[in-house]
């Protein structure tokens, strides 16, 4: 089985570039150039240098001793929460801003939900001295005030998306519209493995540093490059794509993708796309998405803004379809308890997104000798208010 994108931009039945003609020249320009850039020695040297000195890579692969004792298995945490800006998102924005520079673009746009990708984009724009406009749903702007302030401090303009449901999917629509209206000088930094080809593949490649490091680090610690399990949360799916990437063809490594069940799969307030979604088109990609019978895209729900997306990247739809990855849905309550559990047992406050991945330890029994790597995609500082409200601290 092949899990890489094919020459037409598809993973099995999923992917492609279902975009209006107005976007075609820009997306095509990117498609023709991205692999040449990424494979170029100068690009790689600049990219790796920034990941090391600016982002702080490699991030540790931490053996979580007390957590392992509690669940009677061997648990490693991949500490993406220790990246500059607090999550894995910056791996991708560093990569894409280098692509944008090589394409000769001077103006950067991005969408953001919780604000993590917006902050990561504003950060690299400040680093490179480029104009930055971040679209964010009006409702999210109210919910995520600290990240809005961070983006502004970093010099970005935050534009509210006032259409539709005023959340992430609408911010994405607005960013796409901006790109249509500014076709020559602007580059769109998409924050996940979603959107038209080549974005899902490009973003997965930039995030693949995560699994690359896991292999090397695990070899040093355990004398083997492959764990038994890799577990990661999936909204659009960029941290999972990065954590799975170098294990995709190693069928001995079981991959677990964790979606947000919200208040429960059948509650009507959920973001578990693999269960509730059907194949369709969202943001230029054919993939699984939550939609009405009539093909209208529906509004997802999760306590975690980063998992609150009605689709999943086409790679993940393919991994689900081929059963290469197992998909597990975790509720708000399970995630919040597991987040708090990590605070108490390991002294690490995880992002609520990442807490969904941790919650698998409660629902799944692992063998004593299993090596389980959980991708701790982000830190919980941004979620303090949600934690406080939830637990009444």
């Amino acid at each position, binding site marked *: 089985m092949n899990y890489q994108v094919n020459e037409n931009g598809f993973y099995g039945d999923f992917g492609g570039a279902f975009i*209006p*003609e107005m976007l075609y*020249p820009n997306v095509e320009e990117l498609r023709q150039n991205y692999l040449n850039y990424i494979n170029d020695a100068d690009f790689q040297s600049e990219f790796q240098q920034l990941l090391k000195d600016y982002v702080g890579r490699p991030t540790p692969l931490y053996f979580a001793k007390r957590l392992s004792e509690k669940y009677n298995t061997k648990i490693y945490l991949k500490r993406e929460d220790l990246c500059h800006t607090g999550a894995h998102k910056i791996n991708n924005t560093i990569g894409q801003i280098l692509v944008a520079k090589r394409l000769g673009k001077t103006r950067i746009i991005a969408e953001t939900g919780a604000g993590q990708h917006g902050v990561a984009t504003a950060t690299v724009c400040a680093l490179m001295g480029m104009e930055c406009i971040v679209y964010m749903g009006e409702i999210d702007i109210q919910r995520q005030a600290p990240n809005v302030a961070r983006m502004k401090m970093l010099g970005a303009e935050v534009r509210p998306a006032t*259409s539709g449901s005023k959340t992430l999917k609408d911010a994405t629509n607005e960013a796409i519209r901006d790109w*249509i209206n500014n076709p020559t000088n602007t580059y769109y930094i998409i924050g996940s493995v979603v959107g038209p080809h080549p974005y899902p593949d490009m973003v997965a490649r930039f995030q693949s540093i995560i699994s690359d490091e896991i292999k090397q680090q695990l070899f040093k610690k355990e004398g083997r490059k492959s764990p038994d399990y890799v577990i990661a949360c999936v909204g659009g799916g960029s941290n999972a794509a990065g954590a799975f990437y170098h294990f995709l063809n190693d069928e001995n490594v079981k991959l677990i993708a964790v979606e947000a069940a919200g208040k429960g799969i059948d509650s009507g307030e959920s973001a578990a796309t693999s269960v509730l979604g059907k194949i369709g*088109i969202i*943001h*230029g990609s054919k993939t699984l998405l939550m*939609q009405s019978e009539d*093909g209208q895209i529906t509004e997802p729900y999760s306590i975690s803004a980063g998992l609150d997306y009605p689709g999943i990247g086409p790679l993940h739809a393919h991994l689900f379809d081929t059963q290469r990855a197992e998909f597990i849905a975790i509720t708000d309550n399970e995630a919040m308890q597991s987040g708090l559990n990590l605070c108490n047992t390991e002294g690490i406050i995880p992002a609520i997104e990442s807490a969904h991945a941790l919650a698998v330890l409660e629902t799944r029994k692992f063998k004593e000798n299993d090596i389980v790597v959980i991708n701790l995609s982000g830190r919980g500082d941004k979620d303090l208010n949600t934690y406080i409200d939830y637990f009444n601290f």
Partner: protein
Amino acid sequence: MNRINLKLQENKKLLSIYFTAGFPNLNDTVAIIQELEKSGVDMIEIGLPFSDPLADGPTIQESSTKALENGMTTKLLFEQLKDIRKSVTIPLLIMGYFNPILQFGVEHFCEKCAEVGIDGLIIPDLPLTTFEEEYKTVFEHYNLKNIFLITPQTAEERIRKMDSLSDSFIYMVSSSSTTGSQNSFGDNQKNYFDRIAKMELKNPQIVGFGISDKATFQQAIERQKGAIIGSDFVKFISQNNIANIQNYINNLFI
């Protein structure tokens, strides 16, 4: 022969109007179509509303959101249109995004279009290659014309390819923009209209996006076969009675 082709053979410039089905009121669809024909409009694009219309500006997005709130569905649109050919003879097209059509079933959608008398489809996010490889024969079977969009950025080779795959007209997006975001045409647009006219394509071109009054309408039809008014009409119909459509159309010519 397909009604679009017959219309294109007429020795005149064409005015096409876009409106969103189910807006402002759920059951306005048929009355708007009838009034547009009565007012002398040559062709109509019926917008199938979508929750996430990427290529459209705020006016059409809002009308789509409202139409969906009103209860518009694909199935209902076909019910509303089931007797439309008893009263309306001008070409009718459906303009919609691909996902609702995909969920309805592309072949089933085409079959229903043929049944009610739709002549063509404009699906902005249906890629050229997907159309060519998967749906061209289905469209042809139901005598539906697929309309491609081109923009000032579309490469000549790609325009030629679309021209060869088309058998009606090419939808010229006037500028690099979403719908409803331009107010007048500058030199860039005029040069673009000229450049495309000089390509001597086998399909005539109809200009859309940014046509909002007599001046822009006249500019658009100078070198091309016709023009489409969308956002501006949607704005009009949101504030006026259907009975006033005649005045709106007259104002484009007087």
